[in-house]
C-alpha cells in the first residue's frame, strides 16, 4: 500500500481527534494502532494521526467515561489494549457529530461566499 509523504497530510484540528476516535469505535472494539490505521485509511490518507497524542487522548476519553478498555489479543495473536464505546460515549458521539456537521457547513458557507465575491 502506498503511503503518502507526511508533509502532504493535513494535521488534525484540535479537538477533532476525540471525535474521530469515537467514530472509529462505533464499528466495534479496537486497539490504539488499529484506530490510528483506520482513521488514516478512511480519510484516504489525508489525515495524519500523531501516534504520540493518540494515547493521551484515549486516556482522556477513558477518564471521561466515554470509552472503556481491556487487554486482549489482536488478530495476529499479539497482546493489545482494546477500546470500546460506552453508552454515554455513544450519546456524546451523536451530539458531537451533529455539532461538527453544523460547524463545518457554516464554515463552508462562509468560505464559499467569500470566494463568490472575490
Amino acid at each position: 500500500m502506498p503511503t503518502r509523504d507526511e508533509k502532504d497530510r493535513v494535521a488534525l484540528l484540535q479537538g477533532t481527534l476525540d471525535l474521530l476516535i469515537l467514530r472509529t469505535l462505533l464499528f466495534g472494539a479496537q486497539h490504539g494502532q488499529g484506530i490510528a490505521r483506520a482513521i488514516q485509511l478512511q480519510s484516504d490518507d489525508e489525515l495524519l494521526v500523531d501516534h504520540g497524542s493518540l494515547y493521551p487522548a484515549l486516556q482522556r476519553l477513558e477518564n471521561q467515561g466515554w470509552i472503556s478498555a481491556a487487554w486482549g489479543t489482536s488478530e495476529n495473536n499479539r497482546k493489545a489494549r482494546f477500546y470500546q464505546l460506552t453508552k454515554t460515549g455513544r450519546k456524546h458521539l451523536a451530539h458531537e457529530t451533529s455539532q461538527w456537521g453544523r460547524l463545518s457547513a457554516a464554515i463552508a458557507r462562509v468560505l464559499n461566499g467569500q470566494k463568490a465575491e472575490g
Partner: protein
Amino acid sequence: MFWQRKRKEADFKNEISAHLELEIERLCEQGMSRAEAEAKAHREFGNVLQAEERFHESSHWMLLEHLLRDITYALRVFARNPGFTLVAVVSLALGIGVNALIFSAVNAIVLRPLPVENPGQLVFLENGMFNAGQSFPNYRELRDHNQVFNGTLGYRVTQIELESNHGTATRTWGYLATGNYFDVLGVQPAMGRFFHQEDDLHEGGSPYAVLSYGSWQSRFAGDRDIVGKIIRINRQPYTVIGVAGRDFHGTEVFYWPEVWVPMMMQAQIEPGNSWLDEPATFNTWVIGRLKPGITVDQATANLNTIAAELARSNPKVNEGLTFHLARPGLVGDALGAPVRAFSFGVLLLAALVLLTACANLASMLAARAADRQREIAIRLSIGATRGRVIRQLLTETLVLSVLGGACGYGLATLLSRTLSAWRAPLDFPVQFDVTPDWRVFCFAATISAIAGILFGLAPARHAARTDSNAVLKGETSGFQGHRLALRDVLVVVQVALCFVLVSACLLSLRGLQKSLSMHLGFEPQGVTMAAFDLGLAGYSEERGRAFQQRALDALSRLPGVQSAAYSNSVPLSIDQSHTSIYPEEQSDLHASTAPLAIRYQVSPHYFETLGIRVLAGRDFTWHDDAQSPPVAVINQAFARQILRTENAVGKRFRGGPGGKLWEVVAVVETGKYMSPTEPDTPVLFIPELQQYNTTTTMLVRSSLSQREMTEKIRQTLAQLDPQLPLFGTGGLDQVLRFAFFPLHAAVIALSSFGVLAIVLALTGIHGLVAYGVARRVREIGIRVAIGAAPRQVVKLVLSKTFYLLGLGTVIGFALSLAAGRLLEAVVYGSVRDPLVLAGVCLTMLVLGLISSWAPTRRALRIEPTVALRYE
C-alpha cells in the same frame, strides 16, 4: 472508585510497546526489513517520553501533586530564610490571633445564640418608658392576652442567700423565674426536673430550687443525690428539684446565676419588697417565643394594642406605654445596642492590625520578589507557564499564612481559656464563655486565607509581568518606578494605621491618668466597707434596726477607727436606687413627668466617714428618727436642678416611697454616683432611721491598713451574728475598680493593640529601609568612592523614609480625628489633647529612628571596593 480508575504508568508503557510491535509487524509485512520497520515505527510515534508525561499529567492527582511540590519548595525557601520566615509567621500569628480572640469574644457576646431550643424565635420585650423591666401585673396581661407568642416568660435577676452543704451561707445571685420559664425556653435538666407552670400558681407556695451546674459542683460537691434534698435559701427550707445543664447559664450571656426559684416565691426571696401585685414596680424582664410565621413587626403591633388597653385601664402608671422587641441575651437593646456597637468597633480595630501585618508582609515579599527575579526569569525561560509561577508564589504565601494562622489560633485559644475563667472584679457573677467554637475556627481559617492571598498578590503580579529576557540580561529596569510607588503607598498606609492605634492607646492612657485625679465627690482612700442583707438573713425591721445599731456601736469602738457609719449603698457601686421628686404643694403623685434623683439611706456621720463636704446646714443626728419630722440632705445638683435655688436649706419637697414631705437640712457637694463620665446628677440622702433598708453597708474610716481593718470588721460582725454572710468586704476603692472597669478594659485592649501596631510598623519600616539600602549598595559605593561624606549617605538613605513617615503621620492624624468620636465615649479625652498629640508624634519619630538604625549603619559601613564587585 475514583482512585481505582487510575491506571498504572507501567500499563500505559506496555500499551505503547504493544502499539510499536503491531506497527513494526505491519511494516515488515509491507516488505521492510526489521531494522527499517523499527526505525519508522518509532519515528511515526514521535516522542514516547512526552506521551508518557502527558499521560501522567492527565491523571486526577496532578493538581495535588503540583500543590505538594509547591509546598515542599515553599518550605525549602523558608528554611533558607529563617529570619524572614520567623518575622512573617510571628506578625501573622499576632494579627490573626488578635482577630480570632476578639472574634471569639464577639461570638460569645453577640453572635452565638442562647443554648435553647430555636433561639431565633425568642424576643426580649422592652418598654418604651422604663426600658428593660415590666410590672408583674402587666406581664400577666401580656402573657394571657397576646396572640403572637407561643409562650411568654418573666424573670428577675436577684440576690439569694444560699447555704452550701457545709452549712456556710453565701450571698449569691440567681433568678426568680415564672413557672413556664424552662418550658418556653425548651431546655433539659442535667438531673431531676425543672419547675413548670403548675408549680408556680400560689404566692409563697412553691419552695423549689433549680441549681446551676456550677453551683451544684462547687457548693454541693456534685452530690449525686441532691435532687429531693432540702437546702436553705434565705434561711428557709427549699427542695432541690433539679440541676440545669452545664452549658445553660440562663437568659443573659454575661450573667451566670447559681439558682432558679419560682416567681411566686418573690416575697420570700426579696423580703420586705413584695411587688408581684404592684403595678408601678417594673422589675420583671420578659421574653416571648414568637409563633411560627409571626414577624417581629406583627408581634410589636399586637403587643402595642395590649399596651394601649393597659394605659386605658391604669393611666397612672401605664400612660404612654409602648413595647419594643429586641434580641434576648443582653437585657434587650438598652445594653445590647452599645455592646454590639463596641464589639464591632473593636473587631474593626483588630482588622486594622491584621491589615497592617499584611501590608508589612506584602512589602517584604515585594522586596524578595525583586530579588527572586532571576529565579523566576529562569523558570519562565525553561518552560514554566506564568500561571504555574503565580500558583507557586501564592502557595508560598498561603503556606506562610496557614502557619501564622495556626499559631494565631493556638494563641487565641490559650488566651480565651484564661478569659473564660476570669471573673470581673464585681460582686456580681459576670462571666463569659469565650472558648472558641467552630465559628471561631472558620473565622480564623478564612482570615488566614484572605491574608495569604492579600499579601501574596503583589509578588504574584510582579512575577506575571517579569520579562525573562531583560532580567537575564541584567536589566532590572522597566517596572522599577512602579514597584517603588506601590511599596511607598504600603509604608504610608502602615504608618497611618500605626498612628491611629498609638493615638487611641495614648488617649486611653491619658483617660486613665485623668481618672486618677478626677474629683469623685468623696474620698475612698482609708475607708473600709462590709455589706450584709438583713432581709435575706430573716431579720424583721425591728430586729434589723437593733442589729444595725449594735454593729455600728461595736465598730466605732474598735481601736484606730476615726469615724463609722452605715448606708444602703455607696456611690459608684452597681446598686443605685432612683426616686421621683415632686414639689411640696403637689399631692397627686404622677410618675411620668417628675424629675428623678438617686436616693441613699444613711446613718449619722455618713458624710464625715466618706469625706463628702457639707456646703451648708447640719449632719443627720440620732434624733432624726421615725418620731421626728422627715429631714433630707441634698447635693448641690439637686438644689440647682430641682429646687432651682442656691440656698436650699429649709426648703421642702415630696419624694420617696409614699411621697413623704421632706425638709432639707443640709446641702453637700456634687459627686459621681453612676459612672465617672456622668453629668452632675441630683442626689437625695435620707436618714436610715426614718426609712429602713435591709441591705446595709458598714463604712469605717480608720488609720489601719485595709487588710487589718477588714479582718477586724469580720470578727466584730461574726460576734454579733456568726451566720450572717458578708459581701463587698474590703476597701471602698473597690467601687472605683467597678466604675473604671470599662476604662481599664479599654486601656488594656488599646495598649495591646498599640504595642502590636508599633511592632508591626517597626518591622515594616525596617524592611523598607533595609531593602532600599540593599538595592543601592552599588550606588552608595560609587558615591563614597567619589567622596560622599557619611552625612550625605545618611541623607540619601533616610530622606525618603522620613518623607513617607511624615506623610503617613498626617493621614493618620486625619483618620484618628475621624475615629476619635467613637473613642471619646469610652475614654475620657479628645484626640486634640496636645499631650496625646505630642506623645504620638514623638512615638512616630522614635519609631522611625529605631527601625532605620541598623540598615543605616549598614549603608555607612559600605566599602566602595567591596560594593562595586557586588553581585
